[in-house]
């Protein structure tokens, strides 16, 4: 047993490490409290379904609002639950590349992350724009 003594607490220590990191990410990077291994489930209204993305695609003289493409849905969910600026930008750039492959005139993709907050007591929905990023053609390089 003595040889294994240092390993006795590996699993609980790992739990503490991951859960502490989750609190840091939830506080500083807006990670959904429900996710990330911090055991914040069933603690707050702020779950993934209370955040959504709105996408705009610009072409010369035209701005279109589009839905999240089917092949981007999984990625969009990951971005919604941990919406750091770099993750949002990477998503916007990939979406721009996809749109430009379909429609060569597309110049820009704008991405907004909206959050549904609730008025205390009444639960009335209060939508607020949490983040906004855009990707332009020159961001793609090449």
């Amino acid at each position, binding site marked *: 047993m003595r040889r294994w003594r240092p390993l006795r607490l590996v699993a609980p220590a790992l739990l503490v490490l991951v859960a502490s990191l989750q609190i840091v990410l939830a506080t500083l990077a807006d990670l959904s409290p429900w996710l990330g291994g911090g055991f914040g489930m069933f*603690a707050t209204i702020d779950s993934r379904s209370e955040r959504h993305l709105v996408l705009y695609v610009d072409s010369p003289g035209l701005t279109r609002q589009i839905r999240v493409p089917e092949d981007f849905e999984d990625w969009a969910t990951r971005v919604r639950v941990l919406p750091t600026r770099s993750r949002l930008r990477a998503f916007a750039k990939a979406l721009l590349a996809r749109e430009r492959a379909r429609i060569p005139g597309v110049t820009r993709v704008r991405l907004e992350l909206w959050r549904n907050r609730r008025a205390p007591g009444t639960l009335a929905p209060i939508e607020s724009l949490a983040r906004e990023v855009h990707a332009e053609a020159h961001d793609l390089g090449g």
Partner: protein
Amino acid sequence: MGVDAANRADRAGWLDPVELPLRMTLAALLLRPVGSGPLRAGFLTLAVLGLVVPGLLRRSTLWALLTALAAFRVIEDWPLPDNHAYLLGYWCLAITLALRTGEPQAMLALNGRLLIGLVFAFAALWKLVLSPDFWSGDFMRFTWIVDERFEGVARLFGGMDPAMLDNARAFLAGAAGGDSVLTLSGRFLRATWLSTLWTALIEPMVALAFLLPLARVRPAWVGVRDASLLVFCATVYAVAPVPGFAWLLLAMGAAQVPGDRRRMHFGYLLVYGLILAYQEIQWTSWFLPRAPG
């Protein structure tokens, strides 16, 4: 019967204090399969093999493979896996390490106790300190209305009928118009507040019971651990439908029960079965009026 005699007797049967929690863990994987595609097939195959192949249950290799699958599931799908996925990984890792020691029962007991205590400590920290809307009762009110898994209790205890729920959902979705106001009955407010209060009391209590060194300070109080966890599971999971998480907690709880307390092992199995019943039987519908026609 002394502790050693009881342990020897248990080792011969299915209430073996080491094997019982391992079986409960594998059974949970079969009752509520996790992962998808090849990952799910891997979990199911290992769980079946562990339960039916003689001697495999106590092989650390089996549990190392399960740990690897659980870790892969969390890393590959990060940050989307729920907390259950992490806990499964920690527990399989603890079992793997325990089975490689000369004293698996002691190490399983220590890890089961600490993992339960820590899970509840972090859950309580989120609810009582970090969350902006748990203590106010807003979270529970919102969840009972929006989460369809809570519809039965919202109707039974909160007195909501299907039309009221539909209207409340429309309001919360922002589809009811700008001037509308959500009106909830006193009964619904009391029921959700009671649910908030119960969760706020029981979760820190379980955390303290499992993390405090009760065996050293007051040995007679050790039973509080089992009582608090079993009461938590029997009450909270009657309402919150997350059986996979409950079964993991119960397997870890059973692991920290000494081998000479067979009755308590039965208690854990009983609540394990109760969670299965909650899952399979829509018990709230027994008390609700049937829809006409």
